[in-house]
């Protein structure tokens, strides 16, 4: 007898129970705590917060635990939670010049006020599997610098700006849009573009940025500055009328500096690409800055011929939650459509045989 390829509620419940069991792993092994995830898988937490658009290490850690470490699934969990949160307003722009620096490097200048600060980084590590780490144990303590960092750490782009060598970055008085409340229209303003890229999948942005370095959209970039550390978040409550600090968040900021030969209306000068991500997300911030600059091709009068310069292509496909959902929806039953196609193929074949 015909048994439908259909699952009742019991089948779904059982599948979810099985998944929960697999997530827990061997019962003899201690269960992961959120503190462990937030503390020891911090870069995964940073990525989930960035693409999930919620700055909350504990929730991001929970999402990672619930998703068995699947970052895209964890981002989805955090996003779905975020949708239902009430909105109180928008913060004042972050002042990253006033960042409490933990890392700050520039590839454009050998030295600069405040100096190069390596901070915690995988750069220059030899990527050899560390079997000692498998054993566990406390690392050797990091050495303290003999003196504290300079209080003044001017942003490289600001230093160049004083000499007019790089384009202005006007403050803009309009309040930024929010693509989580209003659908994106094209052409998108830079505010929505940067929001889209900040939420965008790191792998997608990385590949696009890479393509721009290989000739698909020529950008001639220099990593003007990458800085990471804590910045204050300020909000102006309606009833007060002045800014109050509501907390601190860790961010990574990247300002790419790009050659620009000038146009009829603009003198030759350096142009900017901008990247910002929560926590320590350097690869993401750099990729974002390259893609941002590439997407400015139209605005700067450059030929937009490559995928990375195509706003609709980039912005419509950057979101891992959208992409993951739609790719995986192919798992849903399609047998009505497939039946329709079967019938067509048979008819076309029958027609061809009859003709021969």
């Amino acid at each position, binding site marked *: 007898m*015909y048994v439908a390829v259909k699952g009742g509620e019991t089948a*779904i419940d059982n599948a979810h129970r099985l998944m929960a069991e697999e997530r827990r792993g061997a019962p003899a092994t201690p269960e992961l705590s959120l503190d462990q995830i937030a503390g020891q898988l911090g870069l995964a937490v940073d990525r989930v917060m960035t693409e999930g658009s919620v700055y909350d290490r504990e929730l991001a850690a929970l999402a990672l635990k619930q998703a068995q470490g699947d970052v895209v699934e964890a981002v989805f969990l955090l996003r779905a939670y975020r949708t239902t949160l009430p909105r109180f307003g928008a913060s004042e722009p972050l002042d990253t010049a006033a960042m409490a620096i933990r890392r700050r490097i520039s590839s454009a200048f050998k030295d600069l006020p405040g100096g190069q600060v390596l901070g915690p980084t995988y750069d220059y590590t030899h990527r050899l599997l560390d079997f000692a780490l498998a054993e566990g144990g406390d690392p050797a303590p990091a050495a303290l610098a003999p003196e504290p960092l300079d209080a003044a750490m001017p942003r490289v782009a600001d230093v160049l700006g004083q000499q007019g060598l790089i384009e202005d970055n006007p403050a803009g008085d309009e309040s930024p849009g929010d693509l989580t409340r209003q659908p994106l*229209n*094209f052409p998108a303003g830079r505010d929505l573009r940067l929001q889209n890229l900040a939420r965008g999948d790191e792998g997608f942005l990385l590949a696009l940025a890479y393509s721009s370095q290989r000739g698909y959209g020529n950008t001639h970039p220099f990593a003007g500055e990458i800085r990471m550390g804590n910045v204050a978040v300020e909000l102006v409550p309606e009833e007060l009328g002045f800014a109050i600090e509501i907390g601190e968040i860790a961010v990574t900021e990247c300002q790419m500096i790009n050659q620009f030969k000038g146009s009829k209306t603009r003198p030759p000068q350096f142009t900017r690409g901008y990247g910002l991500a929560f926590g320590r997300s350097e690869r993401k911030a750099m990729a974002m800055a390259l893609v941002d600059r590439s997407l400015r091709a139209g605005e700067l009068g450059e030929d937009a011929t490559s995928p990375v310069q195509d706003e609709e292509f980039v912005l419509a496909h950057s979101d891992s939650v959208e992409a993951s959902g739609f790719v995986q929806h192919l798992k*849903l*039953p399609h047998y009505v*459509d497939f*039946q329709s196609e079967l019938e067509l193929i048979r008819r076309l074949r029958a027609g061809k045989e009859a003709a021969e």
Partner: protein
Amino acid sequence: MTHATGYNFAYLDEQTKRMIRRAILKAVAIPGYQVPFGSREMPLPYGWGTGGIQVTAAVIGADDTLKVIDQGADDTTNAVSIRRFFARTAGIATTERTEAATIIQTRHRIPETPLAEGQILVYQVPIPEPLRWLEPRETETRKMHALADYGVMHVKLYEDIARFGRIATTYDYPVLVNGRYLMRPSPIPKFDNPKMHMSPALQLFGAGREKRIYAVPPYTAVKSLDFDDHPFEVQAWDQACALCGATDSFLDEVVTDDKGGRMYVCSDTDYCGRRREAQEAAQ
């Protein structure tokens, strides 16, 4: 909070529902036009019915009775999941009977039982733009809709005829609504297209990932594109349903063995089940 889930009635917050409701009203006023809306991230994945769910959540009330189908069936996994979502977050009554439902959310089918005035059919839509395969850019297709410039679609269908001797589109077959907007009916088989024309029910379409809502009001002309010498026609089967004997319903082909064995059964499980009940009662 209306329910023990800790979420608002039908999950969405009131501000979001108002925004969706305004979009639905504009969609009804401009039949076939895709209204952009601020689609939210739902607790179900994009591509799995988030547009239909948001439309249903904005429309549904405490007195409604909901039916959810996928591929015509009430008991497919995704239909079960969506029905549970609303039973849990809105506490509403659910049914599998087409005529007992006030709201029917569907993926890929229109029920065989004719719909009635007062019913609302909510379609889950993956890609709302009928011109998308011909022109991937939203900026361009928006202009084409503004000018009612649908020549590319006619050319595409005519190329099918030149090459295959017939139009080779079997589902998600393009329609013209109220003589103005080209519309994608969502991936229903073209077998179902005639049911959209002058339907007494209100038809709402939700595309969550693509952030569009569109509508066909009751008693509105919905014409499947065709040519004078190649009129639109629907699929027909040589077989009858192996379970209920229906010859007028859309049939799924089921593989019964690995030696070429096949059987055909109604895709609409409610329709098939009701026919069998009636046959048993008559015996």
